[in-house]
């Protein structure tokens, strides 16, 4: 029953004769099953329409401030799905034609038969309903493909995507947790883009990038003279994000003093710019993200417990790549497609060994590392196929990647001789890379430390395509 009430259609009736208005209200609210609002002038009607977004408007033409034809135009500008029916006591055919050409749905001459007006309003409500439904569907369609930015069919990803879309519909604060490279910002963007706030840009603040006092003034703004150097008023990011979403990236790193202020914003939904006594109401959805253990930080007194509970209203934990290994082929192909297009290398493919390699490698840097690896491999690869060697060469560039344990490799299957050759190759590559890293690309030093003759070391480097310049 309650749901039906909220779905009730809204009709706005505009006429400068109040008695007539009440009479119409009685008839229409009873026979059209709708809520009726009344306005006695065009300007008042416009004001009500802006906040109420009625389904249908029934308006007189002759009114003191804003006549019905002008109101019709303004309503169409405001929301083209509002259906307007025009009525007049001084109707000429020209006026009717003009009103209809301007987009009025129907035109009635006073005095009129109540049944005719009722029929007209019922059809008008139906028209609006169809237009709005259509608009909604189109909106959904255009938004469907980039929806979340997450690719994958594994259980944890399907669950995450579902959770994100459910969170998008609410305004609650969300805390996104997950290892580095799992897509915390992607998740925040997904929530924002699926929410009602999607029309406005999401604002992202990288908390550790800003020193304490700057972070505070950036977030909350300041007034002229609040501190030395504050020569003009400045709106903070909270104000800039009004009506939108604010992502506080790496929230664990914000100083305790800013945490206190942040807590107030979340509780009171108002900000106080530096140097100002008045507070300003803001409507901002806050999404926070972190890869740190906030519980530990709380125990050490570095993170306010009350802020944690405020942020943790809706927690989302993104799975590390190791937990969604089955999605690696899908992700790899998606990234390859993107980069191949970007670098005009369409038609590039992975060999099956390359996919095996990707599946078995440990990805400390998660999806981001996988993506970077494929990015470089797309650039480095010499012919039509990306091989494990290309990927390894690419991983080498990654300063953050750990050397691969030999036993973990993908080549322990198939022909013995090939497998051995590949394993030796992987081992040697990894060994040489480590040695050269340690010596900052100095071949003689690397060879000496490895107990290998310098010429032999160089021969190996040539064989596996390793260049000392890469490590300097």
């Amino acid at each position, binding site marked *: 029953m309650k749901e039906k009430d909220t779905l009730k259609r809204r009709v706005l009736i505009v006429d400068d004769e109040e008695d007539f208005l009440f009479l119409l209200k009685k008839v229409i609210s009873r026979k059209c099953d709708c809520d009726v609002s009344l306005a006695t002038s065009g300007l008042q009607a416009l004001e009500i329409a802006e906040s109420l977004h009625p389904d249908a408007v029934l308006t007189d033409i002759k009114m003191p401030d804003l006549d019905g034809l002008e109101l019709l135009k303004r309503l169409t500008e405001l929301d083209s799905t509002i259906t307007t029916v025009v009525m007049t006591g001084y109707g000429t055919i020209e006026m*009717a*034609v003009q009103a209809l050409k301007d987009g009025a749905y129907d035109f*009635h001459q006073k005095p009129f038969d109540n049944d005719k007006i009722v029929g007209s309003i019922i059809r008008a409500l139906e028209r609006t309903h169809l237009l709005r439904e259509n608009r909604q569907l189109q909106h959904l369609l255009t938004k469907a493909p980039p929806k979340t930015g997450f690719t994958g069919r594994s259980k944890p990803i399907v669950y995450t995507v579902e959770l994100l879309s459910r969170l998008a519909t609410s305004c609650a604060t969300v805390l996104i947790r997950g290892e580095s490279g799992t897509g915390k910002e992607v998740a925040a963007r997904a929530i924002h883009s699926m929410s009602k706030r999607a029309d406005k840009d999401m604002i992202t603040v990288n908390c550790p990038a800003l020193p304490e006092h700057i972070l505070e003034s950036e977030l909350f703004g300041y007034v002229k003279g609040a501190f030395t150097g504050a020569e003009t008023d400045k709106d903070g990011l909270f104000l800039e994000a009004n009506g939108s979403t604010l992502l506080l990236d790496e929230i664990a790193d914000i100083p305790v003093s800013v945490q206190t202020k942040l807590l107030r914003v979340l509780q009171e939904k108002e900000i106080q710019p530096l140097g100002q006594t008045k507070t300003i109401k803001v409507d901002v959805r806050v999404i926070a993200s972190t890869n740190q253990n906030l519980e530990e930080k709380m125990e050490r007194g570095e993170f306010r417990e009350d802020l944690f509970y405020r942020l943790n209203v809706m927690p989302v934990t993104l799975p590390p790549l190791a937990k969604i290994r089955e999605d690696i082929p899908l992700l790899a192909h998606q990234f390859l497609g993107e980069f191949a297009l970007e670098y005009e290398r369409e038609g590039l493919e992975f060999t099956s060994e390359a996919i095996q390699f990707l599946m078995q490698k440990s990805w400390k840097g998660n999806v981001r590392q996988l993506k970077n690896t494929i990015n470089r491999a797309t650039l480095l690869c010499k012919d039509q196929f990306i091989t494990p060697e290309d990927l390894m060469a690419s991983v080498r560039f990654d300063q953050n990647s750990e050397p691969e344990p030999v036993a973990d490799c993908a080549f322990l299957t198939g022909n013995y001789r090939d497998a051995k050759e590949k394993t030796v190759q992987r081992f040697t590559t990894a060994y040489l890379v480590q040695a050269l890293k340690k010596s900052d690309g100095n071949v003689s030093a690397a060879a000496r430390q490895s107990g290998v003759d310098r010429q032999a070391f160089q021969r190996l480097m040539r064989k596996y395509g390793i260049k000392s310049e890469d490590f300097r």
Partner: protein
Amino acid sequence: MAEILTLDDVQDAVVLIRKILSRRGHTVHTFTEEEDAIRYALKNHIDLAILDIKLKKMSGIEVLAELKRLQPEMKAIILTGYPTVETARDALSFGANEYCVKPIDKQELESKVEKVLQL
């Protein structure tokens, strides 16, 4: 210049329209029978139809609907000696670009035709 179809149950009326508009360089095809006009529209391109509402068997708005079905891009002007809000509403909702009250003078007809053709 435009291909114009005009339909009225009174022969003099369509002849007058042809006289006025052909002087402006348009080709005007005149009809007094609904079926003839629709049959013509089946096979020939029309830029603009000028239709009276009161015809022999059908109403001009019914003919308008039929012509629009055949040629959706076609523009239309509805003429009538008995204007009502209802027919104005119907005419516009079936796609007429103008709804004019007869008698219509030469200048008004010329200017309405030019206006509609420019849409």
